[in-house]
């Protein structure tokens, strides 16, 4: 809502309060002022001039030489380039010495040899926002009404001395969508009175009786419908002062009748509509819901498809308006209109809101109806508009008014208890402190002991219960005056849950391992959502019903596509050595259309690419590889105390290199995978060799074990025995390890692979693997013979089960 300071001053005394002061006071008490705009952008010495003569410039086709009377002894000769300048016009003239916005000074000049003593101004040159003005005025000079006095200063004429406060209203304060509502708010802040406009209606026409008939067929949607008839209308532009006020409020002036309905809407908050009475069949108004498939053309010449939830104003045969949103083109007031039917009605906010949304049509009227209009403004606004039309459009108001009332909400009674007020705010207010604020708000009340029985005026639809009154008292008392305390009562212990603490641990370990955390969007493109296998069941990505773009139209089911995109983004910026991870939610469902909430799982994704080390003056560059990433996972899993870790070769994982990928299996459960991205996928994302992992973080957290306490340090020495075997290349290290673990007996403490060597000289398709087995008995020192015996079993088992030959 844009509030003209000068207009506001008509309803409440703001003397002694600058617009900036007022803005600050409004903001601090709950009605935020987003901007304060001074309409005078630096105009001085511009006056009303009268063009007495216009001649072509002798040497320039597009210039005119005008003689302009500005009330001085002589006419001013001014060269003007505007197309629309004509003799006989009243125009704004910047005389020599005047200033225009941008610190532009008017001087005597010669234009193509002709002297020019001043400038005839356009609206834009005067710093005015001309967007709401007719096109010819935007392109040329500002033509003023003929009745203005020559030589008078332009500021009051154009409202340039006004200041506009732009309110950023919260949805509850629809009362401030009107000038009088703002006046009540300002009056409450300043402790002053409100002066409402007089409602004197000169009913000098014939009776409305029998000429207008109202039927409300949708009583849930329309609570009251009133109308007046005004005849003898003379359509014309509205007076300049009214146009200035409308433009200050951001409303386009159209003609006197429409302008008056808008003006009264701005003043009272009650939207009004004028129909051409002649186009309303038999003066009948039927308020009903639209029929399926029904259509109508609105005032903006657009055909609207209607449905059964939309409320219409009809004349019993045809729709003549979408209730509360926009009138119909078929009943528009035109030059030919003699009699108008002026509507003032109260529609249900939710109904108008729905209709406006569906039609994608939000008008100043619908904006107000949606947020509930003061039901008592219906009649007041109707009378106010009628009297203005009589005054400014030469109308004759019929006697009486048509009125169909379903219900008028009564003023609410709300009890305020002093103890509740102080208990909720932490204040120590007295009864008088509260009641004096109610008086400033112009709420009536009676006190009963420590209880105040408040009658809430209907303009404040937002106030329905005690806390609402408490808020009114608190905001006008000033939040600054509420003390600052700390809660008392039971002490509580703040601590993270196991899951939250372990999630932090995962981050810490991966940070410690050298990975940077990233944070990607949750939405993704349906085409890439499944570029990688999910680590959960095969699930369809959940689509948004109205995405903003296809790129972000479904919810992610795995983290890797975004990680690859991030890698590509960084590669493009010459950042190729990447070590990244994300811990975030993925969204899973087995339903085609959600009927219940999907499962949200915490997933952990990682990506490594480029060099892990160097190039450094001491070392050669060391590119990342599978075993680096695997080692990091081992560190993480160990840190989480997860036992039973297994890496199984996995060939068929989508998006992954079939020979360089392992499934991570934890205690028999598949927790995710790790490996190199499939070269084809790498190419799709335009990245080089890239290694990734993706794990079910919820599962990691579930399997994590808390530290069990210290294990005693070994008292007896461990002894290592190395064994180097030649096996088929297809025999995996994991198999060898398993065989050793199964055969070595209880003393085996650990197995370490310290060399793998592939060479055809070892035999066709053979490789050599060297392992070191460490044996220890916690109770005593093992003898050489015992170790030899255990180790022999290992060698034997390797030979039998893996076809291993001992290497010399």
């Amino acid at each position: 809502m844009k509030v003209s300071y000068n207009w506001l001053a008509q309803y409440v005394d703001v003397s002694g309060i600058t617009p900036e002061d007022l803005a600050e006071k409004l903001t601090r008490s709950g009605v935020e002022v987003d901007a304060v705009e001074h309409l005078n952008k630096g105009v001085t010495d511009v006056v009303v001039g009268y063009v007495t003569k216009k001649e072509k410039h002798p040497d320039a086709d597009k210039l005119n030489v005008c003689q302009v009377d500005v009330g001085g002894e002589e006419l001013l000769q001014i060269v003007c380039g505007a197309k629309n300048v004509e003799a006989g016009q009243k125009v704004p003239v910047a005389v020599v010495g005047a200033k225009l916005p941008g610190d532009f000074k008017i001087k005597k000049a010669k234009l193509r040899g002709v002297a020019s003593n001043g400038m005839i101004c356009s609206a834009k040159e005067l710093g005015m926002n001309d967007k709401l003005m007719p096109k010819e005025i935007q392109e040329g000079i500002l033509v003023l009404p003929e009745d203005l006095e020559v030589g008078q200063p332009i500021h009051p004429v154009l409202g340039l001395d006004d200041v506009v406060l732009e309110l950023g209203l919260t949805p509850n304060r629809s009362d401030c969508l009107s000038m009088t509502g703002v006046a009540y708010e300002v009056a409450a802040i300043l402790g002053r009175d409100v002066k409402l406009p007089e409602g004197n209606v000169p009913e000098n026409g014939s009776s409305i009786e029998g000429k207008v008939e109202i039927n409300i067929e949708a009583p849930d949607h329309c609570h009251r419908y009133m109308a007046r008839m005004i005849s003898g209308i003379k359509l014309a532009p509205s007076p300049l002062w009214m146009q200035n006020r409308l433009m200050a409020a951001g409303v386009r002036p159209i003609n006197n009748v429409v302008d008056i309905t808008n003006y009264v809407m701005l003043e009272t908050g009650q939207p009004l509509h004028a129909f051409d009475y002649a186009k309303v069949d038999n003066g009948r108004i039927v308020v009903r819901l639209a029929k399926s498939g029904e259509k109508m053309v609105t005032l903006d010449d657009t055909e609207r498809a209607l449905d059964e939830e939309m409320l219409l104003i009809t004349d019993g045969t045809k729709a003549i308006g979408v209730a509360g949103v926009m009138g119909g083109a078929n009943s528009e007031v035109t030059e030919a209109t003699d009699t108008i039917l002026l509507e003032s009605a109260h529609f249900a906010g939710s109904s108008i809101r729905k209709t406006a949304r569906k039609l994608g049509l939000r008008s100043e009227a619908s904006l107000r109806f949606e947020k509930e209009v003061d039901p008592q403004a219906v009649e007041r606004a109707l009378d106010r508009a009628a009297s203005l039309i009589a005054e400014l459009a030469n109308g004759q108001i019929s006697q009486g008014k048509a009125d169909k009332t379903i219900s008028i909400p009564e003023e609410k009674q709300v009890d305020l208890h002093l103890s509740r007020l102080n208990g909720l705010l932490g204040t120590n207010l007295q009864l008088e402190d509260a009641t004096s604020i109610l008086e400033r708000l112009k709420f009536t009340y009676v006190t009963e002991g420590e209880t105040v029985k408040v009658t809430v005026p209907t303009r404040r639809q937002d106030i329905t219960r005690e806390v609402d009154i408490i808020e009114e008292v608190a905001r006008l008392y000033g939040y600054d005056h509420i003390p600052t305390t700390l809660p008392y009562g039971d002490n509580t212990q703040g601590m993270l849950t196991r899951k939250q603490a372990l999630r932090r641990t995962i981050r810490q370990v991966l940070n410690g391992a050298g990975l940077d955390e990233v944070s990607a969007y949750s939405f993704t493109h349906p085409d890439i959502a499944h570029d990688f296998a999910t680590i959960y069941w095969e699930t369809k990505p959940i689509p948004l019903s109205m995405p903003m773009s296809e790129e972000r139209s479904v919810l992610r089911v795995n983290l890797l596509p975004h990680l690859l995109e991030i890698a590509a983004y960084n590669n493009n910026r010459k950042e190729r050595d990447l070590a990244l991870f994300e811990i975030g939610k993925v969204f899973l469902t087995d339903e085609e259309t959600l009927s219940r909430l999907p499962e949200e799982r915490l997933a952990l994704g990682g990506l490594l690419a480029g060099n892990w080390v160097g190039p450094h003056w001491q070392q050669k560059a060391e590119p990342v590889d599978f075993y680096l990433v695997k080692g990091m996972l081992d560190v993480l899993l160990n840190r989480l105390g997860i036992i039973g870790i297994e890496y199984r070769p996995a060939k068929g994982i989508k998006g992954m290199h079939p020979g360089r990928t392992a499934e991570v299996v934890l205690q028999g459960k598949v927790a995710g995978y790790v490996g190199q991205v499939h070269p084809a996928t790498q190419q799709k994302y335009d990245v080089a060799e890239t290694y990734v992992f993706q794990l079910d973080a919820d599962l990691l957290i579930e399997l994590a074990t808390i530290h069990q306490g210290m294990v005693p340090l070994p008292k007896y020495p461990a002894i290592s025995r190395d064994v180097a075997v030649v096996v088929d290349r297809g025999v995996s290290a994991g198999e060898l390890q398993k065989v050793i673990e199964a055969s070595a007996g209880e003393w085996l403490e650990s197995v370490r692979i310290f060399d793998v060597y592939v060479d055809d000289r070892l035999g066709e398709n053979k490789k050599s693997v060297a392992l070191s087995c460490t044996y220890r008995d916690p109770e005593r020192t093992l003898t050489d013979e015992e170790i030899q015996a255990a180790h022999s079993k290992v060698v034997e088992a390797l030979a039998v089960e893996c076809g291993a030959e001992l290497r010399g």
Partner: protein
Amino acid sequence: METSTWSERSQGENAVTGSILETVFPPNSLLSRPLNVKVRGSGIISVINEQDESGFCPFSNKGGTATSRPLPGGRFFYFLMRLKEVYTVRERLEALKAEALEELEQIGQTAQVQELRVKYLGKKGLLTEILRGMGKLSAEERPVIGQLGNEVRSAIESKLEEKKEAAERAEIEAKLASESIDVTLPGRMVHVGNRHPLTLVTEQIEDIFLGMGFTVAEGPEIETDYYNFETLNLPKNHPARDMQDSFYITEEILLRTHTSPVQVRTMEKMKGKVPVKVICPGRVYRRDNDDATHSHVFNQVEGLMVGENVRMSDLKGVLLNFARQMFGEGTEIRLRPSFFPFTEPSAEVDVSCSMCGGKGCRVCKHTGWLEILGSGMVHPRVLEMAGYDPEKYTGFAFGMGIDRIAMLKYGIDDIRHFYTNDVRFLKQFNRV
């Protein structure tokens, strides 16, 4: 025979050439101190300063103070012989000491020290050799000379030790000098990754509220319309729903537009128990076009406290405490009346600008204040719907944008940085 002093004679190379004394005391083994001997014409010699520093007197059996006394001529030769023996060992010891010390002074390497140790103190060394001559000495003279021998040994030994240490030091220094490297060459870096700045700030906020006795609660990002709106006093078609344009999946299911539904879910779980003290961080979603200050995904943290005597003044206290821990000790807060459907009274909370300290700058648009929080007293209807009697219990709630706080705290000018994940950006958050 003329009288002369030994000292005089000993000073000249040819002073007593050919005399007996000359042959007994080779020049390099002369006594270190002059012994004044008077040789009289009668053949009687008398020792003037007969007592040397060690109290040794060759003429006294007692080893005490000798007095000048005449010796009968017939015993003169005997005397000379005795003198010769005594002085031979004694002087040789003294001479050895001087010679050893002087030689040691010249050397600088540990090997040389060892060599000289063998030369002087070894089993076949010079000292041993001299002392071997002690056998010829009388029983009285032996301990005296023996003691002198020990003194010489220890003098040489301590000098040897001193030189050995010095030599070792010198050798170590030389070795270290030869080992010096260019310390300005770059080191081998150990990789340490960084938390995402949003994680950094989230954890900071969590820790502050944990310290005030709050716990952390979480809820789903995909929510029902019921929890996201209706339980928060936002019935269908409520105009306030426009404040947050939402991403719907079905008519009843949407991406949550705020973390407030976790309030209600928490209260439902608590089943009427008090106090409820939680914060709820997490992602939220709004239909905003992404630009420098808007993102369709961002992070919020919600706070809720419900109990029997929870007051708006407590809300101020808790938020002031938070603001000071987050933005610094001198931070002030300011509450402005506002509107949220789920709180009444409601307040926007500004903190004094941490960039300019409240003086006004570009960041705070010259107001001195930064708007960071929405808050208020939990609306009675919200309490009711979550199973708490609003006649008995009150509560406060607040919510803030983590992205915005991170932007203010670190001076980040574009919210999209958080989701673009340029590593040059991420790597800047490597402290605290």
